[in-house]
């Protein structure tokens, strides 16, 4: 065996490289390639399924030598920002954006408040902590479809909460979010919070448990009341947990789809539509792919606005530090 020469670095660690092929393919083909493909096609007028990933139709002839270029369909149907113009002029998209905005904002604020308060309560060295946590977290194990259907039933005006309270004598009581266009998104919000706050609570609890117990002792020795300790010492210390939680909630909000499908199907009318549903409907039912691509590119943009600054703060500073 000749071991004197430096081996080809390409073959060093070969098994590891082979083992990483699925990861490399996923990263490059699906995440980078797929995303780029969708973004590029959002500038086209494609209405129906392209037959192939790329159409190798454009042929450049140089003498007797010819070259197919893989962007034929894009060149042929390139329409610039037309899909986006149309998107932002579509009422249904505007409703979707508005809903996402209301749902997102409320869900973000309420998740944080409810999650943190519950975590703080559970962190008081109470008995039955596990029982309480188990009950509050179980909805998270359920799918959005199940969640949506349960709350569709609970909010059913003829049989659900409204009818029960009317039955108790409050005849004029009205609470039927799923059937009134103005407040339907809040009906979805109730279900979403029920499903998701347990997770936020667990994350916050982990954050609280991660705080040095000496801080509490120091605060007590200094005579600082508990609420002040939380507000001025503990919460600022939990900044990293909050940021991570924020990113998790935000990227989840943008994706909201199943819950709407199950609970309201976008109704009444189009009053509870959301972007993800817009994308799906245009891609797979409306046969208007360009719209679907443009809408999904907008979703990507929304996530990028949240994730890129976070990644910069989280990893950029760490590299420098």
């Amino acid at each position, binding site marked *: 065996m000749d071991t004197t020469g430096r081996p080809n670095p390409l073959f060093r660690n070969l098994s590891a490289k082979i083992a*990483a092929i699925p990861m490399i393919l996923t990263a490059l083909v699906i995440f980078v390639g797929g995303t780029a493909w969708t973004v590029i096609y959002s500038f086209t007028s494609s209405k129906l399924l392209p037959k192939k990933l790329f159409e190798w139709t454009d042929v450049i002839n140089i003498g007797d030598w010819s070259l197919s270029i893989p962007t034929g369909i894009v060149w042929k149907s390139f329409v610039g920002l037309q899909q986006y113009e149309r998107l932002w002029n579509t009422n249904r998209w505007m409703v979707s954006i508005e809903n996402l905005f209301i749902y997102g904002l409320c869900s973000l604020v309420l998740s944080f408040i409810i999650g943190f308060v519950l975590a703080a309560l559970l962190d008081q060295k109470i008995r039955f902590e596990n029982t309480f*946590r188990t009950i509050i977290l179980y909805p998270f194990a359920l799918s959005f479809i199940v969640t949506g259907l349960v709350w569709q039933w609970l909010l059913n005006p003829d049989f659900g909460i409204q009818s029960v309270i009317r039955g108790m004598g409050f005849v004029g009581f009205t609470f039927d979010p799923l059937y009134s266009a103005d407040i339907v998104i809040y009906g979805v919000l109730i279900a979403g919070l029920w499903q998701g706050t347990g997770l936020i609570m667990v994350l916050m609890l982990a954050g609280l448990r991660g705080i040095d117990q000496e801080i509490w002792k120091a605060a007590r020795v200094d005579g600082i009341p508990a609420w002040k300790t939380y507000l001025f010492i503990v919460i600022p210390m939990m900044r990293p947990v909050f940021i991570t939680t924020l990113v998790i909630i935000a990227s989840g909000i943008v994706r909201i789809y199943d819950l709407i499908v*199950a609970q309201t199907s976008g109704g009444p009318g189009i009053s509870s539509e959301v972007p993800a549903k817009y994308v*799906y409907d245009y891609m797979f039912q409306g046969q208007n792919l360009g719209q679907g691509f443009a809408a999904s590119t907008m979703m990507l943009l929304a996530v990028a606005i949240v994730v890129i600054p976070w990644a910069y703060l989280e990893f950029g500073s760490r590299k420098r530090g």
Partner: protein
Amino acid sequence: MTLSTAIAGADAVASRLKGPQGPKPRKRFSRRNIFIYGTLIVVALYYALPLYVMIVTSLKGMPEIRLGNIFAPPVEITFEPWVKAWSEACTGLNCEGLSRGFWNSVRITVPSVFLSIAIASVNGYALANWKFKGAEAFFTILIFGAFIPYQVMLYPIVIILREIGLYGTLWGLVLVHSIFGMPILTLLFRNYFTSLPEELFKAARVDGARFWGIYFRIMLPMSLPIFVVAMIIQVTGIWNDFLFGVVYTKPDTYPMTVQLNNIVNSVQGVKEYNVNMAATILTGLVPLTIYFVSGKLFVRGIAAGAVKG
């Protein structure tokens, strides 16, 4: 600490020393405790209520539902809605109940869980112990990929699956689940393998074990807990999936969630709320069972899997 705060602190300590102090000799029915436990009990009731309503509704007959209130326990318990939900409920396309969806979900979940964990654990192991140039770059793309809305990648994958002849098949969906499970699982395994003592890995190399030898003989036997956590994440995640199921399968291979939605939101016929609730519970039963059985491991799993969103 300045002198004045030091004195103020000392005062506070002195005043505390007079009264009942510290959390230990706390009175059982202090106002603080009543507040904490009271709030938690109300909250727990709120969270538990939907499950309770689901169960009682599914055990009532339709006449009782029309007359009574949804919170009332069933007067006459009937299991007929469950039977109907399982084998007779209609989706608008067929009237085979949830059973077909259940078996489809099983046939999707089992291979997806195995394939995704096999791929991700080997990836994570390679990233943790056999770093090669560029590995971190691909990993970073993978992690950022976890944040890309699925909608962006739905269509390219449709085309890829069609090109390789898997579109509309169970195996196509298995592949999709393995791909989208990869970021979080790879992160999970990479972090876990990194936390294992590096010297064990070095010792095994000195002992002549190679990539696969170390993976199977040294790493796997030490990593059973993390494999359980990964299985919890994957089984619940894949079982609960709706979007991929509806996009990448055809009606006869629809997973349970899609089947459930089609049954409940079917516009045909009279709404049978008891059947709907029975069907809903049936669909939630697998993840709920895993949740209640696995306890702490589930919490660990979602804390790690939270990134998946």
